[in-house]
Protein backbone atom coordinates (compact mmCIF):
# COMPACT_ATOMS: atom_id res chain seq x y z
CA UNK A 1 0.00 0.00 0.00
CA UNK A 2 1.33 3.43 -0.91
CA UNK A 3 1.83 5.85 1.98
CA UNK A 4 -0.63 8.67 2.30
CA UNK A 5 0.54 11.44 -0.10
CA UNK A 6 0.70 14.14 2.57
CA UNK A 7 2.73 11.87 4.83
CA UNK A 8 5.06 10.98 1.95
CA UNK A 9 5.50 14.68 1.12
CA UNK A 10 6.27 15.45 4.71
CA UNK A 11 8.91 12.69 4.73
CA UNK A 12 10.45 13.98 1.52
CA UNK A 13 10.41 17.54 2.79
CA UNK A 14 12.05 16.55 6.06
CA UNK A 15 14.71 14.50 4.23
CA UNK A 16 15.39 17.40 1.86
CA UNK A 17 15.68 19.83 4.74
CA UNK A 18 18.04 17.52 6.63
CA UNK A 19 20.27 17.26 3.55
CA UNK A 20 20.18 21.05 3.17
CA UNK A 21 20.95 21.56 6.85
CA UNK A 22 23.86 19.10 6.74
CA UNK A 23 25.27 20.68 3.59
CA UNK A 24 24.88 24.11 5.14
CA UNK A 25 26.52 23.09 8.39
CA UNK A 26 29.38 21.50 6.44
CA UNK A 27 29.82 24.70 4.41
CA UNK A 28 29.94 26.84 7.56
CA UNK A 29 32.39 24.45 9.19
CA UNK A 30 34.62 24.32 6.11
CA UNK A 31 34.65 28.11 5.91
CA UNK A 32 36.50 28.16 9.26
CA UNK A 33 36.94 31.31 11.28
CA UNK A 34 36.66 34.44 9.15
CA UNK A 35 39.92 36.34 8.82
CA UNK A 36 40.04 39.85 10.27
CA UNK A 37 40.24 41.35 6.78
CA UNK A 38 37.08 39.57 5.62
CA UNK A 39 34.95 39.44 8.78
CA UNK A 40 33.05 42.56 7.79
CA UNK A 41 33.70 44.31 11.08
CA UNK A 42 37.38 45.20 10.75
CA UNK A 43 38.47 47.73 8.16
CA UNK A 44 40.43 45.57 5.69
CA UNK A 45 42.56 48.61 4.77
CA UNK A 46 43.46 49.37 8.39
CA UNK A 47 47.10 49.12 9.47
CA UNK A 48 46.28 46.54 12.18
CA UNK A 49 45.46 43.84 9.64
CA UNK A 50 48.49 41.60 9.52
CA UNK A 51 49.60 42.79 12.97
CA UNK A 52 46.73 41.51 15.13
CA UNK A 53 46.40 37.80 15.82
CA UNK A 54 43.95 36.03 13.50
CA UNK A 55 41.11 34.05 15.17
CA UNK A 56 41.95 30.86 13.27
CA UNK A 57 45.52 30.93 14.55
CA UNK A 58 44.42 31.04 18.18
CA UNK A 59 41.15 29.11 18.15
CA UNK A 60 42.13 26.14 15.99
CA UNK A 61 44.31 24.86 18.87
CA UNK A 62 41.45 24.80 21.40
CA UNK A 63 38.93 21.98 22.04
CA UNK A 64 36.43 22.20 19.18
CA UNK A 65 32.72 22.92 19.48
CA UNK A 66 30.01 22.88 16.84
CA UNK A 67 28.60 26.29 17.64
CA UNK A 68 29.41 29.76 18.92
CA UNK A 69 33.01 30.47 18.04
CA UNK A 70 33.50 26.72 17.90
CA UNK A 71 35.51 26.45 21.08
CA UNK A 72 34.61 24.45 24.20
CA UNK A 73 35.83 27.17 26.56
CA UNK A 74 35.29 25.36 29.86
CA UNK A 75 36.99 22.25 28.50
CA UNK A 76 39.90 24.41 27.33
CA UNK A 77 40.29 25.54 30.96
CA UNK A 78 39.80 22.07 32.44
CA UNK A 79 42.29 20.49 30.04
CA UNK A 80 44.82 23.20 30.77
CA UNK A 81 45.02 24.21 27.10
CA UNK A 82 44.61 27.82 28.21
CA UNK A 83 45.28 29.37 31.61
CA UNK A 84 43.80 32.85 31.59
CA UNK A 85 44.67 35.05 34.58
CA UNK A 86 41.99 35.18 37.27
CA UNK A 87 43.08 38.57 38.66
CA UNK A 88 45.35 41.49 37.88
CA UNK A 89 45.08 43.41 41.16
CA UNK A 90 47.10 42.13 44.11
CA UNK A 91 44.24 42.28 46.65
CA UNK A 92 41.53 40.59 44.61
CA UNK A 93 40.03 37.53 46.20
CA UNK A 94 39.30 34.88 43.58
CA UNK A 95 36.05 33.18 44.54
CA UNK A 96 35.23 29.69 43.29
CA UNK A 97 32.09 27.70 44.07
CA UNK A 98 30.99 24.14 43.33
CA UNK A 99 27.34 23.99 44.36
CA UNK A 100 24.68 23.15 41.80
CA UNK A 101 21.18 24.56 41.43
CA UNK A 102 18.28 22.59 39.96
CA UNK A 103 15.58 24.53 38.15
CA UNK A 104 12.54 22.28 38.22
CA UNK A 105 9.78 24.31 36.60
CA UNK A 106 10.74 23.76 32.97
CA UNK A 107 7.44 22.48 31.57
CA UNK A 108 7.89 19.53 29.24
CA UNK A 109 11.62 20.12 28.91
CA UNK A 110 14.20 18.36 31.05
CA UNK A 111 15.08 20.28 34.20
CA UNK A 112 17.99 22.71 34.20
CA UNK A 113 21.14 22.03 36.22
CA UNK A 114 23.13 25.18 36.87
CA UNK A 115 26.74 24.34 37.82
CA UNK A 116 28.58 26.98 39.84
CA UNK A 117 31.95 25.34 39.15
CA UNK A 118 31.98 26.06 35.41
CA UNK A 119 30.59 29.56 35.89
CA UNK A 120 32.92 30.67 38.68
CA UNK A 121 35.86 29.33 36.68
CA UNK A 122 35.25 32.38 34.49
CA UNK A 123 33.09 34.77 36.48
CA UNK A 124 33.00 36.43 39.86
CA UNK A 125 29.92 36.10 42.13
CA UNK A 126 29.20 39.79 41.62
CA UNK A 127 28.78 39.35 37.88
CA UNK A 128 25.46 37.55 38.44
CA UNK A 129 24.54 38.34 42.06
CA UNK A 130 22.48 40.27 42.90
CA UNK A 131 21.86 42.13 39.65
CA UNK A 132 20.80 39.20 37.46
CA UNK A 133 19.97 36.57 40.08
CA UNK A 134 19.08 36.64 43.76
CA UNK A 135 21.43 34.60 45.91
CA UNK A 136 18.56 32.46 47.18
CA UNK A 137 17.83 29.56 44.81
CA UNK A 138 14.34 29.76 43.37
CA UNK A 139 13.88 33.43 44.25
CA UNK A 140 14.49 34.77 40.74
CA UNK A 141 11.96 34.47 37.96
CA UNK A 142 13.69 33.07 34.90
CA UNK A 143 12.04 32.05 31.66
CA UNK A 144 13.07 31.48 28.08
CA UNK A 145 11.35 34.66 26.92
CA UNK A 146 13.65 36.71 29.16
CA UNK A 147 16.70 34.69 28.18
CA UNK A 148 15.97 35.02 24.46
CA UNK A 149 15.60 38.76 24.97
CA UNK A 150 19.14 38.92 26.32
CA UNK A 151 18.25 38.98 30.01
CA UNK A 152 19.33 36.60 32.82
CA UNK A 153 21.36 33.70 31.29
CA UNK A 154 20.95 35.44 27.93
CA UNK A 155 23.33 38.23 28.92
CA UNK A 156 26.16 35.81 28.10
CA UNK A 157 24.58 32.74 26.45
CA UNK A 158 24.09 33.69 22.85
CA UNK A 159 26.65 36.48 22.96
CA UNK A 160 29.90 35.07 24.39
CA UNK A 161 28.90 31.69 25.87
CA UNK A 162 27.32 28.81 23.95
CA UNK A 163 24.16 29.97 22.17
CA UNK A 164 20.51 29.27 22.87
CA UNK A 165 20.28 26.69 20.11
CA UNK A 166 21.94 24.18 22.45
CA UNK A 167 18.87 23.43 24.59
CA UNK A 168 20.10 20.13 26.05
CA UNK A 169 23.31 21.55 27.49
CA UNK A 170 21.24 23.34 30.14
CA UNK A 171 18.08 21.23 30.09
CA UNK A 172 20.01 18.12 31.03
CA UNK A 173 18.29 16.54 34.02
CA UNK A 174 15.51 14.07 33.30
CA UNK A 175 12.69 13.88 35.82
CA UNK A 176 12.98 10.72 37.90
CA UNK A 177 16.61 10.15 36.92
CA UNK A 178 19.46 9.36 39.31
CA UNK A 179 20.79 12.88 38.78
CA UNK A 180 17.44 14.39 39.76
CA UNK A 181 17.26 12.10 42.82
CA UNK A 182 20.66 13.39 43.95
CA UNK A 183 18.98 16.72 44.71
CA UNK A 184 16.25 15.05 46.80
CA UNK A 185 13.63 17.68 47.51
CA UNK A 186 16.20 20.49 47.51
CA UNK A 187 16.99 23.04 44.83
CA UNK A 188 20.69 23.18 45.68
CA UNK A 189 23.31 20.56 46.34
CA UNK A 190 26.81 21.34 47.57
Amino acid at each position, binding site marked *: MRPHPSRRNRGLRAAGCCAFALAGAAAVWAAGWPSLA*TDGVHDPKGP*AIGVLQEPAEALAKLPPDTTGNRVRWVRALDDGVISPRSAVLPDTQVRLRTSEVLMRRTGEMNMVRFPHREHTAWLDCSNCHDQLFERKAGATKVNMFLILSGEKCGVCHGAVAFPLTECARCHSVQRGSVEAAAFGKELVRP
Partner: protein
Amino acid sequence: MTPWLPSPAVPMALVLACVATCGAWPQDACAEYGDVLLNKRSDRAGVRPVVFPHWFHRIRFQCKVCHSELGFKMRAGANDVLMADIIDGKFCGMCHNGQVAWGAEQCDLCHTGRRGLPSGIYGGHETRGPGKW
Protein backbone atom coordinates in the same frame (compact mmCIF):
# COMPACT_ATOMS: atom_id res chain seq x y z
CA MET B 1 -3.26 17.26 21.13
CA THR B 2 0.00 16.98 19.20
CA PRO B 3 2.80 19.15 20.56
CA TRP B 4 3.81 22.11 18.44
CA LEU B 5 6.87 21.36 16.35
CA PRO B 6 8.75 23.92 14.29
CA SER B 7 8.62 23.37 10.55
CA PRO B 8 11.85 21.86 9.19
CA ALA B 9 12.08 25.02 7.10
CA VAL B 10 13.07 26.97 10.24
CA PRO B 11 16.47 25.34 10.89
CA MET B 12 17.08 25.23 7.15
CA ALA B 13 16.47 28.95 6.84
CA LEU B 14 18.81 29.62 9.78
CA VAL B 15 21.57 27.50 8.25
CA LEU B 16 21.15 29.10 4.83
CA ALA B 17 21.17 32.56 6.38
CA CYS B 18 24.35 31.69 8.23
CA VAL B 19 26.03 30.33 5.09
CA ALA B 20 24.87 33.33 3.14
CA THR B 21 26.20 35.87 5.62
CA CYS B 22 29.48 34.20 6.58
CA GLY B 23 30.33 32.20 3.47
CA ALA B 24 29.24 33.98 0.35
CA TRP B 25 29.32 37.63 1.37
CA PRO B 26 32.24 38.16 3.68
CA GLN B 27 31.78 41.91 3.44
CA ASP B 28 28.64 41.71 5.57
CA ALA B 29 29.41 41.84 9.27
CA CYS B 30 29.94 38.25 10.43
CA ALA B 31 32.66 38.95 12.95
CA GLU B 32 33.92 36.39 15.40
CA TYR B 33 31.36 35.34 17.99
CA GLY B 34 31.20 37.98 20.71
CA ASP B 35 33.12 40.75 18.97
CA VAL B 36 32.01 44.13 20.33
CA LEU B 37 32.08 47.20 18.13
CA LEU B 38 32.30 50.51 19.99
CA ASN B 39 31.28 53.51 17.94
CA LYS B 40 29.63 55.88 20.35
CA ARG B 41 32.08 58.64 19.45
CA SER B 42 34.72 57.25 17.08
CA ASP B 43 33.08 58.15 13.77
CA ARG B 44 32.33 61.67 14.94
CA ALA B 45 35.89 62.04 16.21
CA GLY B 46 37.26 60.97 12.83
CA VAL B 47 38.79 57.66 13.90
CA ARG B 48 37.81 54.10 13.09
CA PRO B 49 35.46 52.49 15.65
CA VAL B 50 37.00 50.09 18.19
CA VAL B 51 36.64 46.34 17.79
CA PHE B 52 36.90 44.45 21.07
CA PRO B 53 37.46 40.72 20.44
CA HIS B 54 36.20 38.65 23.39
CA TRP B 55 37.88 35.50 22.02
CA PHE B 56 41.35 37.06 22.11
CA HIS B 57 41.01 38.42 25.63
CA ARG B 58 39.44 35.38 27.27
CA ILE B 59 42.35 33.18 26.24
CA ARG B 60 44.50 35.44 28.43
CA PHE B 61 42.12 36.71 31.12
CA GLN B 62 39.05 35.25 32.79
CA CYS B 63 35.80 37.22 32.38
CA LYS B 64 35.99 38.32 36.02
CA VAL B 65 39.12 40.37 35.45
CA CYS B 66 37.42 42.90 33.19
CA HIS B 67 33.84 42.47 34.37
CA SER B 68 34.65 42.64 38.07
CA GLU B 69 38.09 44.10 38.73
CA LEU B 70 38.12 46.57 35.85
CA GLY B 71 34.47 47.53 36.24
CA PHE B 72 33.14 46.77 32.76
CA LYS B 73 29.39 46.18 33.00
CA MET B 74 28.28 43.02 31.21
CA ARG B 75 25.60 44.70 29.12
CA ALA B 76 27.24 45.85 25.90
CA GLY B 77 26.76 49.60 25.56
CA ALA B 78 26.43 50.16 29.29
CA ASN B 79 30.05 51.27 29.56
CA ASP B 80 31.03 54.79 28.66
CA VAL B 81 34.72 54.38 27.92
CA LEU B 82 36.60 57.60 27.21
CA MET B 83 40.18 57.86 25.98
CA ALA B 84 40.91 60.07 28.99
CA ASP B 85 39.94 57.18 31.31
CA ILE B 86 42.11 54.73 29.40
CA ILE B 87 45.10 57.05 29.58
CA ASP B 88 44.41 57.40 33.32
CA GLY B 89 44.70 53.63 33.65
CA LYS B 90 41.01 52.85 33.93
CA PHE B 91 39.05 50.29 31.88
CA CYS B 92 41.24 49.11 28.95
CA GLY B 93 44.03 51.28 30.37
CA MET B 94 44.49 48.87 33.25
CA CYS B 95 46.43 46.63 30.85
CA HIS B 96 46.80 48.74 27.72
CA ASN B 97 49.52 50.86 29.28
CA GLY B 98 52.60 49.77 27.35
CA GLN B 99 53.44 47.18 30.00
CA VAL B 100 50.88 44.36 29.97
CA ALA B 101 49.67 45.23 26.47
CA TRP B 102 50.31 48.02 23.98
CA GLY B 103 49.63 51.54 25.20
CA ALA B 104 47.00 54.10 24.26
CA GLU B 105 49.30 55.81 21.76
CA GLN B 106 48.92 52.82 19.43
CA CYS B 107 45.53 54.08 18.24
CA ASP B 108 45.36 51.92 15.12
CA LEU B 109 45.62 48.60 16.96
CA CYS B 110 42.27 49.07 18.76
CA HIS B 111 40.53 51.48 16.37
CA THR B 112 40.30 48.82 13.69
CA GLY B 113 36.61 48.78 12.76
CA ARG B 114 34.87 49.71 9.53
CA ARG B 115 33.71 53.29 9.61
CA GLY B 116 29.97 53.79 9.82
CA LEU B 117 29.15 50.49 11.52
CA PRO B 118 26.73 50.85 14.42
CA SER B 119 27.84 49.88 17.94
CA GLY B 120 26.88 46.43 19.16
CA ILE B 121 27.83 42.79 19.56
CA TYR B 122 28.59 41.06 16.28
CA GLY B 123 29.12 37.46 15.33
CA GLY B 124 26.23 35.38 14.05
CA HIS B 125 22.47 35.26 14.23
CA GLU B 126 22.57 33.96 17.78
CA THR B 127 23.77 37.28 19.11
CA ARG B 128 20.98 39.46 17.79
CA GLY B 129 18.89 39.06 20.90
CA PRO B 130 21.34 38.59 23.74
CA GLY B 131 23.96 41.24 24.19
CA LYS B 132 21.59 43.84 22.83
CA TRP B 133 23.13 47.29 22.69
